[in-house]
C-alpha cells in the first residue's frame, strides 16, 4: 500500500455512473422502494440511515444558530441580534447540538449500522424498539424546534435555576418536556445496544475479540441508561416548579437551587462521555485500519472505555467550583477529574504506538482520525487546566471553557463522526467517493476549526465571559478571527455533503473490503444484504489480525 493509493477499481473510469450492480440489487437499500418500507422498517441499517438524515438536519439547524452568533460577534456592539435574540440563538445552538446531534450522532447512526455487523448478528436485539426510538427522537426534535423557534427559550442549554424556574420568560416547561421525551429515545437505544452486545455475539466473538468500536458503544450505552433518567427527573422537577409552584429548587419554599446543578451535572457530565466515547471507538478503528497493524494494548484500550464511563459518573462537581460547594468536595472532584486523563491518555498513547512503524495510508478516514487525536489532546489538556481549582476560578464561565469543550465535542466528536462517515461510506452505500476531495475536506475542517476556536482560548484567558454579545473593543480582533474560521469550518462541513451524494450515483462500486481492513463488517457485500449474513459467521482469531510485515521484508 503506497501512501497515496487510489481506489482499486478507479482505473475503469468508463464504468462510472453505471447502472446498479448485482450486489446492490440484493442489498438492504433495494429491499423495498416504498416510503413505508423505510418508515416502518425494522432493519437496523435502514434505521441508521433514517437517523443519519435526522441528525444531519439538526446539525444544520444548530449550525445556522451558531452562524448567527458568530455574525453578531463580529462587532463589539450587539447590532445583529437583540439581547433576547442572542440568548435564544445560543440556547437553540446548545440544545439542538447537544441532544439532537452530538448525543445521537455516532451511536445512533454508526452504532446502529455497525454493531450487529461487527458482532455477526442479523439485527439489534429489539428491532421494533429501535424504530420506536427513532420516532421518539424525531418527535422530540420537532417539538424542540417548534418551542425554540416559535416561543424561544433564553436559559442556555443548562436550564440553570433559579433563572429557568423563576425568572425566564421563555417556554422552559415545553423545552424541558421535549428534552425529557428525547431522553426516552436515548434510554431505549442504550438498552438495545447493551442487550445486543451481551446476547447476540456470534460464535467465537468473545469479549476479548470484540471490535473496539463495539466496546466504546457498550460503555456509552451504560451511561445512556444510567444517567439519562436522572436528567429526566430533574427536568420533571423544573417543570413541576414552573407549573405548580413545587419549589424543590426555590429557596423561598425551602428548596435549594444548587441541588439543581448537582442533579443536572450528574447527567450532563457523563453526557460529555456519551458524546466522546463513541468517537474514541471510531478512532481506534480508523487508526488500526490506517496503520494495518493490530491495535497496541487492545485490552487497555477496551478497558479504558469502561474506566472513562465509570469515573465519568463521579466528576460532575467540577462544573460547580465557583458555585459555593464545599471546598473539600471541590478538592475531591478536582482529583477525580484529573484521574479521567489516565484512561484518555492510555488511548492516545496506544494509538500512537499502533501507528509506530505502520504502513500508514493517508486516506480521508485517517486524516479525520489524526484531526481527532490532535484536537482531542488540546481539548483534554485544557480540560486538565480547568480541573485545577485555582485555574478554574480565573477562567470559569469564560470563552476558555467554550473553546475547551468545543475542542472535545466539535474537534473531537464531529471529526470522528466525519471520519466514520468516510471510512464506512463505501460499506453503507456500496460506492466509493473521490479521495482527493475527502482529504481536502479533512484538511479544511482541521484549519477552520483551529482558526475558530483557538482565538477563543485567548479571549477567555483575557477575560471575555461566555454568553455575552456586547464586549470590550479590544476583543474584536480575536472575535473576527474566530468568525472567519467559523465560515471556513462551515464550508468544509458542507463539502462532504456534495461529493458523498455525488458518489452514490457516480462512484465506482466499492467491493466488499475497499480498505483491506479486518472486522466482520468487511466480510459482507457492500452494501450488505438485508439479513447481513447468509450464514452466521464463526470467529476464530483475535481482532485486528493484520499481517505484520517484518523489517527487511518490504524494503
Amino acid at each position, binding site marked *: 500500500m503506497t501512501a497515496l493509493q487510489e481506489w482499486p477499481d478507479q482505473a475503469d473510469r468508463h464504468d462510472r455512473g453505471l447502472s446498479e450492480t448485482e450486489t446492490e440489487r440484493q442489498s438492504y437499500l433495494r429491499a423495498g422502494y416504498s416510503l413505508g418500507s423505510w418508515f416502518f422498517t425494522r432493519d437496523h441499517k435502514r434505521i441508521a440511515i433514517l437517523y443519519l438524515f435526522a441528525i444531519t438536519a439538526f446539525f444544520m439547524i444548530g449550525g445556522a444558530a451558531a452562524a448567527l452568533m458568530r455574525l453578531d460577534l463580529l462587532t463589539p456592539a450587539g447590532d445583529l441580534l437583540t439581547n433576547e435574540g442572542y440568548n435564544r440563538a445560543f440556547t437553540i445552538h446548545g440544545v439542538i447540538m447537544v441532544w439532537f446531534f452530538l448525543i445521537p450522532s455516532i451511536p445512533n447512526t454508526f452504532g446502529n449500522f455497525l454493531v450487529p455487523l461487527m458482532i455477526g448478528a*442479523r*439485527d439489534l436485539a429489539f428491532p421494533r424498539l429501535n424504530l420506536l426510538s427513532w420516532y421518539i427522537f424525531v418527535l422530540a426534535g420537532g417539538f424542540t424546534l417548534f418551542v425554540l423557534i416559535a416561543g424561544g427559550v433564553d436559559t442556555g442549554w443548562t436550564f440553570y435555576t433559579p433563572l429557568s424556574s423563576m425568572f425566564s420568560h421563555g417556554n422552559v416547561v415545553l423545552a424541558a418536556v421535549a428534552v425529557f421525551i428525547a431522553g426516552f429515545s436515548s434510554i431505549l437505544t442504550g438498552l438495545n445496544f447493551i442487550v445486543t452486545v451481551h446476547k447476540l455475539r456470534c460464535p467465537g466473538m468473545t469479549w476479548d475479540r470484540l471490535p473496539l468500536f463495539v466496546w466504546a458503544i457498550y460503555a456509552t450505552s451504560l451511561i445512556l*441508561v444510567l444517567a439519562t433518567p436522572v436528567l429526566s*427527573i430533574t427536568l420533571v422537577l423544573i417543570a413541576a416548579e414552573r407549573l405548580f409552584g413545587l*419549589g*424543590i429548587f426555590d429557596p423561598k419554599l*425551602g428548596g435549594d437551587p444548587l441541588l439543581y446543578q448537582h*442533579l443536572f451535572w450528574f447527567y450532563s457530565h457523563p453526557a460529555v462521555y456519551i458524546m466522546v466515547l463513541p468517537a474514541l471507538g471510531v478512532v481506534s478503528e480508523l487508526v488500526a485500519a490506517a496503520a494495518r497493524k493490530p491495535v497496541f494494548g487492545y485490552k487497555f484500550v477496551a478497558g479504558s472505555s469502561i474506566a472513562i464511563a465509570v469515573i465519568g459518573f463521579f466528576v460532575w462537581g467540577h462544573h460547580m467550583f465557583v458555585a459555593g460547594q464545599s471546598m473539600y468536595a471541590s478538592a475531591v472532584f478536582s482529583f477525580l477529574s484529573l484521574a479521567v486523563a489516565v484512561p484518555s491518555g492510555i488511548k492516545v498513547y496506544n494509538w500512537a504506538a499502533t501507528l509506530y512503524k505502520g504502513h500508514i495510508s493517508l486516506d480521508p478516514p485517517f486524516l479525520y482520525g489524526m484531526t481527532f487525536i490532535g484536537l482531542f489532546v488540546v481539548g483534554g489538556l485544557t480540560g486538565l487546566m480547568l480541573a485545577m481549582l485555582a485555574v478554574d476560578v480565573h477562567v470559569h464561565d469564560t470563552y476558555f471553557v467554550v473553546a475547551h469543550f468545543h475542542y472535545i465535542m466539535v474537534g473531537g466528536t464531529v471529526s470522528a463522526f466525519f471520519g466514520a462517515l468516510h471510512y464506512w461510506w463505501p460499506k453503507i452505500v456500496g460506492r466509493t467517493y473521490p479521495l482527493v476531495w475527502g482529504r481536502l475536506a479533512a484538511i479544511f475542517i482541521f484549519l477552520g476549526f483551529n482558526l475558530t476556536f483557538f482565538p477563543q482560548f485567548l479571549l477567555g484567558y483575557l477575560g471575555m465571559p461566555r454568553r455575552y454579545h456586547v464586549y470590550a473593543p479590544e476583543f474584536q480582533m480575536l472575535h473576527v478571527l474566530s468568525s472567519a474560521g467559523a465560515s471556513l469550518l462551515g464550508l468544509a462541513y458542507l463539502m462532504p455533503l456534495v461529493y458523498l451524494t455525488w458518489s452514490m450515483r457516480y462512484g465506482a462500486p466499492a467491493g466488499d473490503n475497499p480498505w483491506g481492513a479486518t472486522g466482520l463488517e468487511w466480510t459482507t457485500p457492500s452494501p450488505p444484504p438485508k439479513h447481513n449474513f447468509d450464514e452466521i459467521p464463526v470467529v476464530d482469531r483475535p481482532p485486528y489480525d493484520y499481517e505484520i510485515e517484518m523489517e527487511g521484508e518490504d524494503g
Partner: protein
Amino acid sequence: MVETRPVAEPYRDARQQRDAAMLGMYVFLGSEIMLFGGLFAVAAVMRLLHPAEVVEASKALHVWIGAINTAVLLTSSLFVALAVDCAKRGRRRGTGAWLFSAASLGAVFLAIKVYEYSLEHAEGLLPGLGAPLKISTPVQRAFMDLYLVATGLHALHLLIGILLLLVIAIRAVSGRLLLPERVIVPVAAGLYWHLVDVIWVFLYPVLYLAR
C-alpha cells in the same frame, strides 16, 4: 418445557430470545431506579440539611394510610408471583385471574392514595392545587413538594403497571398469549410490577417514617 414458537428475526433460538428479553427488562429497571434515584437524592439532601424540620413535616403525613397501602401493594406482588407460576405451568385462566387480582389491588392502592391526597388537601398540606396552605416552615413546604412529586410519579408507574397487567390477563385468558411458550411476557411484566412495589417500600419509610 418445549418451545415451539418460531423465534423472531435476530435470534438463533428461543432460549437466546428469552435471555435477551430478560436482560432488556433488567436494564430498563436499572434506568427506572436511576429515575427515582434522583428523588431519593433530593430526599437525602433535605434530611441532611434540615433534620429536625423534615421529621416534623413527616409526622404530619397519615402514617397508617401509608402502612395499609404498603400491605396492599405487597399482597399484589404475591399475586403477580402466583400468576407467573401459573403461566409456567400453562394454566391460562389461573394466570389471568391472578393478574387481574393484582391489577385490582393496584387500583385499590390508587383509590386509597387519592383519598389520602384529598385528606391532605383539606388539611391544607398539599401544595400545587391553589388551596390556602397551612404549612409552617419552608422546609415543610419543600418536603410536601417532594412528597407530591415522588408519590405522583410512583402512582403514574403503578397506573402503567395496572394497564399492562390487564392487557396480559386478557390475552392470557383469550389464548392469544401462548403459554407456557411465551411465559417471558408475564415474567417481564411481573418484574416491572415488583420494582414499582419495591420503590414504594423505599418511599414509605423515607417519607412517612422519618423520625
